[in-house]
């Protein structure tokens, strides 16, 4: 399968960490040990959603870095959800079967860095907390800054506080506490690297502040997972397979390709990794590039499209698949 190796797993534990975040513990169904992974890795869950196959990427928690008997993920019920996270919250209970991909890391710690500044907003804490766990185990210097709306929505806050003590700085916007990136970035010694995961606007803000403070690009790391949004439906023709289909309003281009029975490449399903880049043969309409992979020049040339998050506004798209 194009997403790589699949591991059949079963939900063996669920926990409501907050009103909107659910933790899942997934154990292999075939007795095969799950591979160890590095902090910042994610996995793509494949769930039979009845009428459709749900494939969503989730960061792997720091609690199961060694792999083996189980993996853990935390899923936030997304208000803009196309149904995936809502299905996981409402229907995925202990005993449910699903499969997951081998771990992929697009947000790894730089092991040559001398100090690590971790910044998380909301559910963005999941890969960041795993990084903190890894750095803590390696006894490497780090500070963790975690911004959240209110204490109830701050999944993991208490656990992180117990584990990391003074290395953890919490900012609760309900209590008028604001994370000041400029203060955090000032006076950091050479060799410090910065990692951010959270809402897109937060990532942009932190990155801009770091660049304005003269930080070099190689020291800046962000996890930009996009939840693909729906859009207007359009016709899709897969030239090599000789298949014509329609990409529905609440469906991604990649999902429509898969539903048509074509095994198209993918890895992150969030516009970050570049694996699903596909050649555009013809586009009767305007390509809506939503990924973080192609350069602006590549996007305007429109020779390729990232099927996981991008789509067409127009009549028909013809792909080399």
């Amino acid at each position, binding site marked *: 399968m194009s997403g790589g190796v699949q591991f059949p797993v079963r939900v063996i534990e669920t926990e409501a960490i907050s009103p909107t975040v659910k933790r899942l513990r997934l154990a292999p169904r075939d007795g095969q040990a799950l591979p160890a992974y590095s902090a910042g890795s994610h996995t793509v869950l494949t769930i039979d959603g009845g009428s459709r196959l749900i494939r969503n990427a989730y960061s792997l928690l720091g609690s199961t870095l060694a792999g083996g008997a189980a993996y853990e993920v935390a899923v936030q019920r997304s208000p803009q959800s196309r149904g995936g996270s809502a299905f996981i919250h409402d229907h995925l209970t202990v005993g449910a079967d699903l499969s997951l991909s081998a771990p992929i890391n697009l947000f790894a710690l730089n092991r040559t860095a001398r100090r690590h500044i971790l910044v998380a907003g909301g559910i963005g804490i999941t890969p960041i907390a795993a990084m903190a766990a890894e750095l803590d185990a390696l006894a490497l210097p780090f500070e963790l800054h975690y911004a959240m709306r209110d204490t109830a929505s701050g999944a993991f806050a208490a656990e992180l506080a117990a584990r990391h003590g003074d290395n953890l700085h919490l900012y609760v916007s309900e209590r008028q506490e604001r994370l000041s990136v400029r203060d955090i*970035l000032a006076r*950091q*010694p*050479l*060799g410090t690297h910065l990692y951010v995961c959270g809402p897109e606007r937060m990532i942009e803000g932190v990155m801009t502040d770091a660049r*304005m*403070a*003269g*930080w070099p*690009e190689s020291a800046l790391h962000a996890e930009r997972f996009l939840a693909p949004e729906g859009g207007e439906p359009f016709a899709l023709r897969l030239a090599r397979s000789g298949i014509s289909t329609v990409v529905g309003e609440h469906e991604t281009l990649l999902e429509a390709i898969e539903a048509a029975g074509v095994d198209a490449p993918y890895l992150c399903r969030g516009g970050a990794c570049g694996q699903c880049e596909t050649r555009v043969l013809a586009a009767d309409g305007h390509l809506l590039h939503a990924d973080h992979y192609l350069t602006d020049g590549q996007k305007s040339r429109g020779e390729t499209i990232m099927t996981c998050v991008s789509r067409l506004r127009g009549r028909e798209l013809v792909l080399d698949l």
Partner: protein
Amino acid sequence: MQPSPIKSRPLYGTLAPVAHAMRHIAIAEGEGASAVIEAFGDHEALSRTTILFSPAPYRTDRTQETFLASLSCEALSVASSAEDLLGELVTLLSTATMGTRLYVSGSEDFIGRVTSEALHQGIDADAIQTEHRGAPTRRVQCVHCKGFTDGVSASPATCAHCGIHLLVRDHYSRRLGAFMGVSIDAEAPGDIPPAEAFGA
């Protein structure tokens, strides 16, 4: 310069102060002073710039030094040797913070030594700019005795430590700041081709 097919062979650019940097450290040897003067001239970055300079060995002309002193930079330090200059750089970098950019200009062996020492101090590679000025001399590590020979201007060269004749390859170590030198006559002792000078 012909691009080398060897990927590790360093490429040098033209110094250009990074607008948002909190602090600039420019370090130059010999002819490298001109690159610093051209880049920083009357740039607004000068007020946040420390310049470290060492004249080329055996040079008695002080014009570059005088010119550098006329720039209104934050600090200027002139050392008599590259070793002393490197010592000063290490001291500066040990307390430097993120947002500091380093600019290096001079001979190829000088750039290599400074870059490797700066990386050891934790600065990110993309926070360093380099511009080659002056002689195309290289710093070479003998792969046999591991000794370093500075100021190598042609290949084959003689290892200053073990005396082996070395073919100087384009393979470069960023960690060591040196090119690789391998015995040229291992299979036919004494069969040493005439030396060819490195291109500029």
